[in-house]
């Protein structure tokens, strides 16, 4: 093979083949997905056409401001390298069984995310539906401050640098972290640990991650 133009053509088309077949075609198939109501009904005009239900809320829900800032913290800390955000279908792995989501996640769940954080490692549990699990903001703050507090034996790193330890000024702050009495992780007497803005945003983001809605192509079955 010594003809440069011919060789070059072959090299070009080899990559063009997958560029078109994978990237462009998935863009065509998925690029125009929009929000939808949880179910579709036959339209009045033509029974064979399915349309959205009038007045029903649209999903996936538009992400909200402060949670978006929390997403920036998530990205900045590299949380994706231990946590995925995708729920596999019921007969493939035990994701739904573990309560990581009521159903499989599908492409439409991610259309409003400016950066999709699917992840490929589960050193820690999947977070696609973490906001839908009964873990409240207090739990998240304690867990982030030092994962050993809520999950002993965890290998998650501590994010104490997202919190501020300061002297209690009169009364304790409303958002001071509530440690168990005599906890070895609590601050010294007279001090409290409060979340910085970044920590609060991050927890807001985590609480916003919910797959608690059906989609026409992926109904919640249980």
């Amino acid at each position, binding site marked *: 093979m010594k003809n440069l133009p011919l060789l070059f053509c072959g090299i070009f088309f080899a990559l063009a083949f997958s560029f078109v077949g994978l990237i462009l075609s998935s863009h065509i198939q998925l690029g125009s997905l929009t929000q939808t109501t949880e179910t579709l009904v036959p339209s009045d005009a033509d029974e064979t056409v399915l349309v959205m239900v009038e007045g029903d809320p649209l999903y996936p829900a538009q992400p909200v401001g402060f949670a978006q800032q929390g997403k920036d913290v998530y990205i900045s800390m590299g949380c994706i390298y231990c946590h995925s955000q995708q729920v596999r279908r019921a007969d493939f792995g035990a994701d739904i069984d573990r*309560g990581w989501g009521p159903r499989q996640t599908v492409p439409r769940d991610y259309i409003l995310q400016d950066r999709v954080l699917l992840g490929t490692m589960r050193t820690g549990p999947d977070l696609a539906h973490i906001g839908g*699990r009964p873990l409240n903001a207090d739990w998240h703050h304690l867990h982030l401050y030092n994962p050993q507090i809520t999950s002993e034996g965890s290998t998650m790193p501590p994010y104490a640098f997202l919190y501020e330890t300061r002297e209690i000024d009169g009364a304790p702050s409303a958002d001071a972290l509530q440690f168990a009495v005599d906890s070895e992780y609590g601050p010294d007497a007279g001090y409290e640990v409060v979340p910085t803005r970044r920590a609060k945003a991050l927890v807001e983001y985590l609480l916003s991650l919910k797959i608690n809605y059906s989609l026409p192509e992926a*109904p919640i079955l249980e």
Partner: protein
Amino acid sequence: MSEEEKTPEPSSESRESLEHAAMQDGDMQDVHAQLMREKEEPHEGFSPVPIFLMFVFAALCFWGGVYLVEHSGGYRWDAYSPDFDPNAGAPKPVEIALFDRGAKVYRNQCAQCHQAEGLGVPGVYPPLAGSDWVTGHPQVTARILISGLNGPIVVKGNTYNGNMPAFGSSGLALSDKDIAGVITYIRQEWGNSASDVTEETIAEYSNLYAGRSTPWQAAELKEDLGPIPEVAPLVTEATEAAPAVEGEAATKEAAH
């Protein structure tokens, strides 16, 4: 390696490069040391491709083609399972028994503290196995789950002073179905035997306590209880022997 190098002149290009090379005389010796022992520049032999490889290639292509046809869901954007069947119609919601649903919720939400065997952690989290708080009037457990519990409570002779979070709509928001399931589960696992608690019952209780934002205290738990919900009692050896004893025991042990 100390021979002087000859200067053949196959082409003018060579001559130029050689002249250039000759300029750095001292380096010539060392260049040759490494280059002299180098073998020829690589080139390919022309052995044929083994036939077996062509068969393997063909077999793989065939397999690949079949796989793509079988498992591509018709190339549809909404096919997410390799066994996608476009003729299957809408999937039916799966009905899971209350007990099984509860087992799953328990494992994912409760076992961290109350442990898989329902024995709790001494001094920290109360046991559920053999506890009449659990097997008594279902409204008691429902109150705890919906609005939470704090302050001291005596369970099976020991005092616990912790913080049970609220799992109702004003707290961690487990669904009524899930709360009904998990209460049913803890009432019937580990040797406990008590009645089911249905989703309707929990829905009622949820409405009742929707506005309540403070957790319960142990002393209040058994006050003003409503009627025991009508559910077919669980038939086990234990209940056959003493179905009525539990209710009385529950009311007697108000501050136990």
